[in-house]
C-alpha cells in the first residue's frame, strides 16, 4: 500500500470504477485493522486481569482458603499452599515457574508490547480512514461530474 501522499497525487487520474475498487479495498482494510486492534485490546485486558490475580495471590498468606475450579462449572474448596511461585504460560505450550514479582514483570512486558502494537494499528487505521475520506471525496466529485455530463447529453 503506497503512502497517502502518493495516493492523493494519482487519485484524480483514476476512473470511477477504480475509485470504487479503492474504496472497497480501503473499507476492507479498515475492517481488518479494527478487528485486529480489538483482538490486541482484549489480549492486553486478559494479561492485565491475570496480573491482578497474581498480585492478589502474592498478597495472600499460606493456608488461605480458595475455591478451586475443576471445570468451569465445578469448584472444590482448597487451601493455597504456595503464595510465592506461579507457573506462567509463556506460549507454544511452555510453562515457566516464576516468583510473583517475576510473573508481574512478565505480564508488564507483554502488556507493554501489546500497547505498542495497538498504537501502531490505530495509527495505520487513522491513515487508512483519511485515505478513504479522500477517495470518497474524489469519487463523489467524479460521480457528480459524470451525472452532469449525462444530463447535458440527454438534453442535447
Amino acid at each position: 500500500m503506497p503512502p497517502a501522499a502518493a495516493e492523493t497525487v494519482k487519485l484524480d487520474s483514476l476512473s470511477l470504477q477504480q475509485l470504487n475498487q479503492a474504496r472497497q479495498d480501503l473499507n476492507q482494510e479498515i475492517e481488518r485493522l479494527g478487528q485486529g486492534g480489538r483482538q490486541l485490546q482484549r489480549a492486553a485486558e486478559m494479561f492485565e486481569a491475570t496480573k491482578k490475580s497474581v498480585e492478589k495471590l502474592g498478597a495472600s498468606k499460606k493456608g488461605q482458603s480458595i475455591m478451586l475450579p475443576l471445570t468451569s462449572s465445578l469448584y472444590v474448596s482448597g487451601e493455597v499452599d504456595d503464595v510465592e511461585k506461579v507457573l506462567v504460560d509463556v506460549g507454544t505450550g511452555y510453562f515457566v515457574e516464576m516468583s510473583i514479582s517475576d510473573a508481574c514483570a512478565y505480564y508488564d512486558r507483554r502488556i507493554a508490547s501489546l500497547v505498542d502494537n495497538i498504537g501502531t494499528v490505530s495509527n495505520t487505521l487513522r491513515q487508512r480512514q483519511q485515505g478513504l475520506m479522500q477517495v470518497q471525496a474524489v469519487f463523489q466529485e467524479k460521480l457528480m461530474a459524470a451525472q452532469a455530463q449525462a444530463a447535458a447529453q440527454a438534453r442535447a
Partner: protein
Amino acid sequence: MADPESIKKALQKEMSVYQTLQQELSKFVKTRTELSARANETDIVLEELKLLDDDANVFKSVGPVLVRQDLVEARSNVTNRLEFIKKDLERLDGQIKSLEGRMMEREKEMMKLQGKLRAAGGSGASA
C-alpha cells in the same frame, strides 16, 4: 487476423487460469499469515526463555500433562522450531512470488488478447 470468436475463447481460458491462480494465491497468503503468527509467538517464547535464570523450572505441556523440561533443552528446541518456521516462511514467500509472476504473465496475455479482440472487432465493423 484470428476471428473474434476464437479470441474470445482464448480470453475466457486465460481468465479461468487466472482465477485458479488467484485462489491459489489467497490460500498461500492465508497460510503465510498463520505461519508468521506462529513465528511471532515462538519468538516471544524464546525471548522469555532467554531471560530466565539457568536454574529456572520449565515445563512443556504434552496434551493434558505438564512435563518438566531442562531449560537448555527447551531453549534449543524453541530455537530450532523458530528456524524451522522461518525456513517455511521463506519457502512460502518464494512460492508466492513465483505465483505473482505467473499471474502477471497471464495479465499481460489477457491484455494482448483484449487488444486483438478490439482490433478484430474494429476490422469486422469496417468490412
